[in-house]
């Protein structure tokens, strides 16, 4: 049984945030109808592509975000298209869109109008800066969202430019928040029978994630300094290493066969060790150089030491832990070859995620949906 199979979701959104929200619905069994303009969704131009050759039916991100959805096309600029859309909205539980502020109103799809035909409709809007405020019409990308949310400033070397995180993180954050908005509205609808309008700003979603960093900055009157945690080189890569307790400190040096350091009173407490961090790093270097990431991880992690291997994507796809958990899933490309991609974000014991999730081609389900 699927947890959300009683729900019909109409998704007019483009980009990453809105489609990630509806992907969560599709992952757990909702009937999600992805609505594209006749020329196809712009997000079909998001890579990666096989051989780096753009192909709207082989966009990696489009496949990741839209697997398990049905795909239709309609021209919302035309009267006939708007009539089709209005019929879809009338039968939907959730409507997700990412039009610029004011656009839905101009199309006659303001929430007050939509709820007349469908009082239970949950209408989710995801935009870069929200529907109101002086920045509502500003343009944004990932780089811009990382900058405005305070993440980039704190991230990188103090001597160099602030760094954004890799990938589409702020869009995923906003998509997750949009899903939370939709689901809490549905929980409310279970009690009241009424839907509501949910407004998500990618900017606010990103800021909300770092509330602790911001409160800390308000306590001190200044932002944390830009910095990063260096990874420590070992024989075949880099590891992160964090020893918090006196006992685990000893375990680590005993593994390195260096009891002298393990019991050296100069390093007895965390405070001592913090004050000698550079000295300790230098002392660690030759020991780490003798071992591979895997040797260090499998020796030290069971000793309750916080250690991480700096895995690249090839490591991930061969990681025995992820393989045993069956995390990665597959999806077909138009030429029939299969690619691997991240699976559902969590396991639910009674209502597992849906695995058989082909991605719709442009307009594939027009006939059956309309």
């Amino acid at each position, binding site marked *: 049984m699927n947890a959300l199979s009683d729900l019909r979701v109409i998704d007019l959104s483009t980009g990453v945030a809105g489609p990630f929200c509806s992907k969560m619905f599709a992952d757990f069994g909702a009937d999600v109808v992805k609505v594209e303009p006749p020329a196809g969704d712009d997000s079909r131009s998001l890579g990666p592509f096989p051989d780096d050759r753009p192909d709207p039916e082989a966009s990696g991100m489009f496949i990741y975000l839209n697997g398990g959805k049905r795909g239709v096309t309609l021209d919302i600029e035309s009267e006939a298209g708007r009539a089709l859309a209005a019929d879809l909205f009338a039968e939907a539980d959730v409507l997700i869109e990412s039009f610029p502020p004011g656009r839905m109103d101009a199309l006659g799809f303001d929430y007050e109008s939509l709820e007349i035909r469908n009082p239970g409709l949950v209408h989710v809007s995801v935009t870069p800066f929200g529907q109101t405020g002086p920045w509502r019409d*500003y343009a*944004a990308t990932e780089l811009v969202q990382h900058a405005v949310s305070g993440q980039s400033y704190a991230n990188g070397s103090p001597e160099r430019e602030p760094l954004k995180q890799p990938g589409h993180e702020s869009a995923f954050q906003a998509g*997750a928040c949009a899903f939370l908005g939709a689901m809490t509205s549905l929980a409310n609808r279970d009690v009241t029978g009424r839907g509501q309008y949910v407004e998500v700003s990618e900017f606010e979603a990103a800021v909300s994630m770092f509330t602790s960093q911001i409160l800390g900055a308000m306590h001190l009157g200044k932002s944390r300094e830009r910095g990063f945690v260096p*990874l420590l080189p070992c024989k075949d890569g880099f590891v992160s290493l964090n020893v918090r307790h006196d006992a685990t400190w000893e375990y680590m040096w005993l593994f390195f066969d260096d009891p002298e350091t393990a019991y050296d009173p100069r390093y007895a407490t965390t405070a001592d060790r913090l004050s000698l961090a550079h000295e300790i790093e230098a002392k660690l270097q030759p020991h780490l150089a003798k071992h591979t990431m895997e040797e260090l991880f499998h020796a030290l992690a069971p000793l309750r030491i916080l250690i991480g291997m700096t895995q690249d994507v090839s490591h991930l796809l061969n990681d025995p832990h992820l393989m045993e958990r069956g995390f990665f899933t597959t999806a077909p490309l138009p030429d029939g070859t299969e690619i691997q991609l*991240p699976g559902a974000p969590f396991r639910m014991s009674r209502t597992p995620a849906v695995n058989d999730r082909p991605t719709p081609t442009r307009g594939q389900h027009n006939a059956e949906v309309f």
Partner: protein
Amino acid sequence: MAQRLPLEHVRATVLTQAWAGAFTTRLLADVGAEVIQIESLDRIDPWRGGYPPHTSGVYPNGDPGARPFDRNASYNSVNTGKMGITLDLNDDDAKSALFELVSISDIVAENFSARVLPNLGLEYPALREVNPTIILLRMPAYGCAGPYSTYMGNGGTIEPMSGISSLHGYEDGPPITSGVMHTDPFSGALATAALLIALHHRARTGEGQEIDLSQQETSIGLIADSVMRYSMSGSLPTRKGNRSDTMAPHNNYPCRGDDSWAAIAVRSDGEWAALCELMGRPELASDERFHDLGSRLENVRELDRIVSDWTKRHTADEITRLAQAKSIPCAPVYKSHEMPSHPHLVSRNFFQKVTHPDTGEYPHAGVSWRLSRTPGRLGGPAPRLGEHSRIVLERFIGMESDMVDDLISRGVTGDTPNLDD
């Protein structure tokens, strides 16, 4: 039936701590769930920042005060709107109290490593015995099953283990971890999503269930594009700093002022031409070194130098106004302490003032999904250590007050950490 907050009918008894788990259950509290957070007096939540002489928190004006664990920004930001009680779960009376709370709850949540819950005898079958419809969320770093599941992890291990660090860093430098541990709140938001899905299912079927969320896996989702790139082509993506394969210029550029920067992302040749006009260098739009994306990427160092020469002469705010007037994505690189006074966020009332009895009034980032009829809110300050122990034990599960006194005298509950030395 009217409802003020969408989850006001939901009660969660949680052992969440630090960031990811505590953030998960704070999001529930934001929309009205009653969240009872259980803490240990022997090992207080690491995000309380320890107790003297070993404090590691961020306190108002740097002053830890007499009870620093009630004053730390980290804990106080992700536990708003919760009740806090202390219980030593190795004590039989405390464990009975916990089971009684479970019996009147909808949700139990925790983010320990996977060895802890079985050690405490609190696995799903045991919880289901006292509450057949209970929803249990477990979110260890590596999930509940698999060879790494008992290993400890935090943001600093998840970033390298999920592949993010291999992609993070300057184009000419080594891989790094951010130090921000940014994967925590994303995992937290998805964990809340899982709970809402489980509540939806339970409302229809009366069935509870167990959720296994691996923070490593949720974090890998953040670099899905790189996973697929490798899977398609066998080529490993490299570190690119702020640069992009599909946009140029694309960087944080130095501006006038102290450590001041502006992010500029040019998405098309048209935006590039508009930027050239703004820079007073219209000829660059047709310059063969920069006329299309391919040439701009090939000459990206020179490109960044030219843009920097322009940005350095202006403040980040000026650059933003000029570029956004041409619809070029651009913004200042903000510092965290500037966020609550950001004019856009101020006009949208995004920050909410919360008064904590031990720290005073501070702005907190609000609820980012805005519901028109039943909007969430931050439900009051984070609990002081053990603040609600007596109220919860006496009123919620009817414990006699002399029994509570006895638990306090034995250090099983109370409001003062048990010092190990």
